[in-house]
């Protein structure tokens, strides 16, 4: 089956998306590739298998990964490229429990970092490391029987993830034009410590607009809220001890670590879960498979409108395994509540262009239909897609759950986020504050800025036009 390659960068301030995150394709280097293929998995990682410091599959309970991976852990390698212009994070990974999963040949690092400067990341390091990156990408792609998509994971507010990350995005389009490019971007919040983050973000947005097939924006605030909510649920005493620890969407299931996790670990794991759920139907069997290329096909009506609001439920499972229908319906309702979203937005009061529901576990088509019928009336869909939902049913639930739901919505509710971003950008740009740091860099000109803000404005305008049709349908 088709495989994915993950490209990662790290912004100095943004929570590192540790590689535990969306463990992509782990190539089974052991002999029988045919056996592997016929097990129906393109992704060696069973759900939840490869998280931060996870234990080898053979010692994990739950057995939702294919059996053939038992005892073969040392030969599994992530189809991933880790890129950072500082060494700290990557070194940590190489010393951590996942060190065998990543090959030293898959790393590109430097020492001095990008100084929170998009231009340094994109123009300077981009130019410098271009050959190196292309070569490593080609090698990774060669290992794939059938390469279907790239996942890029980065933050928008810094220098490396934002600048070099979008440079790599461009590269991917040039070198592998047929392969889908999915981007998971962590957007900075209003109170971001990095003063230049609006510049970095807007400059990166232009690249995303033009070169990404699909973007899943993430906001730290949302991740933080989810983490807090879970803490409350656990500590409230009511649910307390009945919450299954390994079912937390913030946990790395089967983790060998008993030490207190670092602050961003929990938040990062949420994103890891997002990507695992996204790819579950591609990895496991189900009665209605949903592939990655179908996501783009169904959810992106016009090329530039490819920003999807994602929402994950449940956040944790109660130990009570008998889940009556009502609880199942609650899961669907939750998916449309703001508390489960990974960005701060209000889709219910905006316009849906398309919506996808990827269900995992013992959920059948009748449950799906019942809930769509129930929830539809409270949602506003664009006139030319009144009944358009994209649905997928995967039989294998995530570790610790009997079922789960990922909803991806293409909704005009992202507009306010972009408008705010534009405002923050303009505040700085009007005064030309900090601009000289960027313009110093070879290849960087004022026009880069004006083009970027124009791109963002156009995007906002497209959303405006669609919003204007609301109420006419």
């Amino acid at each position, binding site marked *: 089956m088709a495989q994915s390659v993950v490209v990662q960068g790290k912004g100095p301030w943004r929570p590192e998306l540790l590689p535990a995150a969306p463990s992509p394709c782990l190539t089974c280097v052991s002999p029988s590739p045919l056996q592997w293929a016929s097990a*129906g998995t393109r992704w060696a990682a069973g759900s939840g298998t490869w998280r931060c410091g996870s234990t080898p599959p053979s010692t994990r309970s739950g057995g939702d990964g294919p059996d053939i991976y038992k005892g073969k852990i040392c030969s599994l390698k992530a189809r991933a490229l880790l890129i950072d212009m500082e060494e700290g994070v990557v070194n940590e990974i190489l010393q951590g429990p996942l060190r065998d999963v990543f090959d030293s040949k898959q790393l590109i690092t430097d020492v001095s970092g990008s100084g929170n400067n998009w231009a340094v990341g994109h123009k300077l390091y981009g130019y410098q490391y271009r050959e190196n990156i292309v070569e490593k990408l080609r090698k990774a792609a060669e290992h794939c029987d059938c390469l279907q998509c790239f996942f890029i994971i980065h933050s928008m507010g810094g220098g490396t993830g934002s600048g070099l990350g979008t440079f790599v995005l461009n590269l991917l389009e040039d070198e592998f034009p047929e392969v889908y490019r999915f981007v998971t971007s962590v957007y900075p919040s209003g109170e971001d410590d990095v003063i230049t983050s609006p510049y970095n973000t807007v400059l990166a947005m232009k690249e995303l607009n033009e070169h990404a097939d699909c973007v899943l924006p993430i906001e730290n605030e949302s991740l933080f809220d989810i983490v807090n909510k879970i803490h409350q649920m656990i500590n409230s005493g009511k649910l307390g001890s009945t919450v299954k620890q390994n079912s937390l969407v913030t946990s790395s299931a089967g983790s060998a670590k008993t030490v207190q996790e670092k602050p961003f670990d929990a938040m990062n794991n949420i994103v890891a879960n997002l990507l695992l759920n996204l790819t579950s139907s591609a990895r496991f069997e189900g*009665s209605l498979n949903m592939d990655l290329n*179908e996501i783009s096909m169904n959810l992106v009506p016009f090329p530039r409108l490819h920003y999807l609001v994602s929402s994950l439920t449940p956040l944790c499972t109660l130990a009570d395994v008998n889940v009556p229908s009502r609880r199942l319906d609650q899961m669907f309702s939750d998916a449309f509540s703001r508390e489960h979203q990974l960005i701060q937005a209000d889709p219910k009061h905006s316009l849906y262009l398309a919506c996808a529901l990827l269900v995992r576990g013992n959920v059948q088509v*009748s449950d799906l239909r019942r809930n769509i019928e129930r929830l539809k009336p409270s949602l506003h869909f664009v006139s*030319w897609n009144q009944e358009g939902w994209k*649905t997928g049913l995967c039989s294998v639930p995530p570790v610790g759950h009997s079922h789960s739901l990922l909803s991806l919505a293409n909704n005009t509710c992202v507009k306010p986020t972009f408008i705010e971003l534009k405002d923050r950008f303009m505040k700085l740009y009007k005064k030309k504050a900090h601009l000289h740091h960027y313009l110093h860099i070879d290849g960087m000109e004022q026009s880069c800025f004006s083009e970027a803000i124009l791109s963002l404005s156009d995007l906002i305008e497209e959303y405006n036009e669609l919003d204007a049709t609301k109420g006419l349908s």
Partner: protein
Amino acid sequence: MSIVTVQLGQCGNQIGHEVFNAICSDVHGTHVLCSKKENESYNDACKERFFCEEESEVPVARAVLVDMEPKVISQTLSMATRSGYWKYDDRSHFCQKQGSGNNWANGYSVHGPKHKEVIMNLVQKEAEKCDRLGGFFTIMSMAGGTGSGLGAYVTQCLRDAFPTSFILNHVIWPYGTGEIIVQNYNSVLTLSHLYQSSDALLVHENDVIHKICAQLMNIKQISFRDVNQVIAHQLGSVFQPTYTAEGGLHYSRNPLGDLMETLVPHPEFKMLGLRNIPQMPENSLAYSTFSWPGLIKHLRQMLIANAKMEEGIDWQVRPPRLGSSIPSSYSTNKPLQFNTSIANLVILRGKDMHSVDLGSFRDPSLYTSWLNPQDAFNAWKTPRAFNKYEKSASLVSNSQFLLKPLDNVVGKAWNMFASKPGTEALKPPPGAPVLRAALAQDT
């Protein structure tokens, strides 16, 4: 004569598997209600039609499995083998890795031409295994990418390679609300292409079967497997052997040809609908009895009122008096309540079917005037009970049943297409002009 089944895409493969399962379980069934000789005759005819007895101990289905991703096919193959009663030929499948992405164009223009040779080789091999080839039965959904796009392409290839063989396409009509967002595009493209190369399209609507599962089969949590099993039962009730002539001595050897002959008199009208009664959960069968007159009466009203199952039939709908025009006026756009037929085929299986009075189906007011009533209606029968139902009646009809769903799909496709500014002018007036106009002219 043998039928080669081509299973296309996830839907096609999942349903195909259930169809062979249903047929096999019928063959091994215990409540056959007929003589041993009769039963043997039936089983022989069935085996020749659908299976190949090779050196292996179990019959091998005459099928080619095609999909653009591997998971479903591998599952299907292994489930069949595990049943112990039948299996697929291990070599008779083709799959790729990347899927079609719900993209009809991908299926039709990319995967089709690219893999034509390999797929047609597989079909050729299966065809050669038949002593006499009776035609092709393809199973696909309209909404996805592989079944729809690649399915349309393969049908064309079948037509080119086997110009004198019958091709029957079994098409799954998707749920009205959401399986796939671009399903209306895919559907429209599929139907228009299939119409060129296929001899007939046998349509099953997901919404309808879902209702049957909910209301008749009493299934609480309906899965696609449940839906597929109901579809398989209905298909089995049509394709299992029957006597097509009154007083016939042998089971018909040419099911597809017979089907086309009775139901598709005109190449422009080839959409066939299927109804089967009774349908109920297996554990209720022992406690239920039915009378043929009752079944026939219900079936006829289901036809007239375009009802899809035996509950909730509108008994108010009546055929128009002969000589007057069709009641609900086309010009005032009132919904056509009465479902006019071009041709109908009733298939009766089980106890005492000889004595059944089918006169009500020969009523000319049910039909257009294009055919003589005696040509517009046919009946096939067998005393051999099907799938544990003491009495089972199926109706395959060429009628207006698909008008509303078709209007819906086409309307939504246009709606989405016209979302681009500047294309609003391209929107046509509502309605599916051809079918409605043609039938309305008939008085």
